[in-house]
C-alpha cells in the first residue's frame, strides 16, 4: 500500500465535526466534475490511491476513469462497502427482507431458483457474496487491490461475535477479486483479536489513530500497545480528530509507530492536499 491514501468523505458531505460544514461540502461537490477536478489535483501531486465508499455517485467517477484510461494509468481504488446509510434508510422503511429484495441484483426468487427466500435462509454466505458483487459492479475494469468492509458492518459483526463472517468475507475477496481484504473499525484492538481468532493473520485494519484518542474505543493506551506489539497492517484515519488537531502535531504523533503503513485523509484544495501529503511522507 502507498503511504498516502486519498479519502472521499469531503465529497459526500461527511464531516464529523460540523453538520453545517457537511452541507457546505454537499453544495460544493454537487456535480461529478467538481469531484473529478479535486481527484485530478491529488493525482497531479503523486497520489495514486483513492479509498472510497460504494456511494451511487462513485459509479459516475468510475465511468469517467474507464473512459479516460490514459489519464488514470496506474490509478487504484480501494472500495469500502457498503454505503451504510443507503441500507439503513431502506431498513427503516422496508424492513430487512424488503431491503434485501431491493438491493440483491435481479429477482431474488430468480437468483435462488429453488424456493427463493426459504433457500436464502440457509445460505447467508451466498447472500453476502451477491451483495459484494452488486457493490463491486461499478468498479469493473478498475484496479481494486484492497477491498474494505465499512466500520458499521465490521463493528456490528464484531459485537455480535459472528467472527466466522469475517473469514468468509476474507476468503471470497481473495478468491473472486484476487484482492486483499481490509477492515475499517472504531474498535481496533477488539477487532484484531477477533480476526486472529478465526485464523486471519496480519490483516489490513483501518482505524482512527490520533493524539487525543478520538473514536479510539478500547482506549488510546490499548491502541498504542497494539500498534507497537501486534502483527497487522494498520492504516490510520481520523488523524486530525475531525479537525481538533493541527496537521503537523497530528502526523508527528503517527511517526512513533513504524508499523503504520498508510494514512487516509481527504481534502478539497490542492495546497491542503500537498501540505498533508508532504507531512505524511516526512513523518512515516
Amino acid at each position, binding site marked *: 500500500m502507498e503511504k498516502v491514501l486519498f479519502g472521499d468523505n469531503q465529497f459526500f458531505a461527511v464531516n464529523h465535526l460540523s453538520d453545517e460544514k457537511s452541507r457546505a461540502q454537499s453544495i460544493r461537490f454537487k456535480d461529478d466534475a467538481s469531484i473529478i477536478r479535486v481527484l485530478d489535483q491529488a493525482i497531479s501531486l503523486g497520489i495514486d490511491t483513492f479509498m472510497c465508499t460504494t456511494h451511487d455517485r462513485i459509479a459516475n467517477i468510475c465511468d469517467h476513469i474507464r473512459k479516460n484510461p490514459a489519464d488514470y494509468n496506474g490509478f487504484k481504488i480501494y472500495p469500502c462497502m457498503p454505503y451504510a446509510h443507503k441500507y439503513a434508510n431502506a431498513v*427503516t422503511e422496508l424492513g430487512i427482507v424488503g431491503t434485501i429484495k431491493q438491493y440483491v441484483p435481479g429477482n431474488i426468487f430468480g437468483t435462488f431458483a429453488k424456493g427463493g427466500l426459504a433457500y436464502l435462509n440457509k445460505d447467508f454466505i451466498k447472500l453476502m457474496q451477491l451483495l459484494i458483487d452488486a457493490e463491486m459492479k461499478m468498479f469493473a475494469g478498475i484496479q481494486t487491490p484492497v477491498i474494505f468492509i465499512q466500520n458499521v458492518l465490521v*463493528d456490528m459483526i464484531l459485537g455480535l461475535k459472528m467472527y466466522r463472517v469475517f473469514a468468509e468475507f476474507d476468503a471470497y475477496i481473495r478468491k473472486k477479486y484476487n484482492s486483499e481484504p481490509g477492515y475499517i473499525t472504531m474498535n481496533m484492538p477488539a477487532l484484531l483479536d477477533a480476526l486472529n481468532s478465526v485464523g486471519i493473520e496480519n490483516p489490513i485494519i483501518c482505524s482512527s489513530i490520533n493524539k487525543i484518542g478520538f473514536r479510539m474505543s478500547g482506549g488510546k493506551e490499548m491502541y498504542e500497545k497494539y500498534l507497537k506489539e501486534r502483527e497487522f497492517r494498520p492504516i490510520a484515519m481520523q488523524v486530525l480528530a475531525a479537525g481538533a488537531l493541527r496537521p503537523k502535531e497530528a502526523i508527528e504523533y503517527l511517526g512513533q509507530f513504524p508499523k503504520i503503513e498508510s494514512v487516509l485523509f481527504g481534502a478539497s484544495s490542492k495546497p491542503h492536499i500537498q501540505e498533508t501529503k508532504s507531512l505524511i511522507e516526512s513523518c512515516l
Partner: protein
Amino acid sequence: MIKGAITGLGKMGISHAAILGAHPEVEMVAVCDASSLVLNAFNKFSSVKTYTDFEKMVESEKPEFVVIATPTKYHYPMVKYALERGVHVFCEKPFTLTASQGEELTELANQKGLVNQVGFHNHFIGTFRELKRLLSQNVLGEVFHFSGESYGPVVTKEKGGTWRSNPEEGGGCLYDYASHVINLIQEIIGRPEKIDGALLKSFYSKGVEDAVYSLLRLDNGLSGTLLVNWSDETYRKMSTSLTVQGKNGKIICDATEVKIYLKKAVPSEKLEKGWTIKYITDLALPVGFYLRGEEYSAQIDYFVDCISNGRKSEYNTFEQAAYTDKVIEMIVNHSKTN
C-alpha cells in the same frame, strides 16, 4: 455477569445486540424475533439462543434485563410481562401507543423498583448535555424562544409499506422522528403543556405524516416551534438541533457542535462576547465499544450500570418517555380538532 436478552431484531435491535455482546459485564443469553431469516443468521454464526416467542424466552432464560426493540404496538404487553416478572427493561422509542399505557408501566416499574429506560439516545450525546448545563447556568439570561428541529431522508418517494406507514401502530414522522425532538425539548428546555398550533403534512406517505410543524407552550411559560420533516433528502442522515434564544444571546446545538453567541461575556463559564463553538470531540462520552455513535453505547452502559449498582436511573425513564407520548397525543388531537 448480568444476563440479558433482546426482542425485535430490526435495525435498533441488532445494533443493541452488538453493543451488549461487546459489553464486558453482560452475557447476552437469547434473542427473539418473528423473522426466521434473522434468527437463522444468529443460529448459524453466534452462540446465543433464539426464540420466536418473547414470553417463552423470558420464562426459560430468566434474564435479569430485556431490551425491547419490536414495533411500537408490542411495547406495552412485552414491557408489562417483563416487569411483572421482576425483569429490568430497556425499551426502544416511541414508548407506547397511548400515554396512559406508558403511565401504567411507569407505575409498575417504580412499584417493583426496576431499572427502566427508553432509547432516546440524544441525551447521551455530549453536545446536548452541554446545552442543558449551559441553560442551567443561565448564560442566556431570560429566555424568550426555542426551536426544536429534525430533518432527514427516510421517505423520499411514494411507496406503501410496513408498520411504519400505519398511524395506529406508531408509524409516521411524528412518532419516529419528532418524538426525539419533543423529548429533547421536554428534558432540556421545559415540558410542553399546551399546543398552540399543529400541522401534520403528508408528501409521499399514505396514511401517515411526513412532516410535523407545531407551536408548543412549556410549563415554564416559554413558547417555541417544533419543525420536523423526514422527507428531506438534502440531509444525508437524521439531523437534530435545538436553538434557544435569550436576552443575552442564543445557542444552537446539534449532535456535533454547540454554537454560542453572547451579547455579554459570561466569565464564570469562560465564554467571551460573540461566538464560541464547542465541538463533540471535546464533549463525547467515552465508551468501550463504538457502533454508529458514542450515544448508542453510552445509553446501554448507563442502563447496565444502573442495574449493577442498584441505581435509580435519571435519564430516559419510563416517566419521561410516557410524557413524550402524551405530547404526541396532544399534537395529534390539536391537528384533528382544528
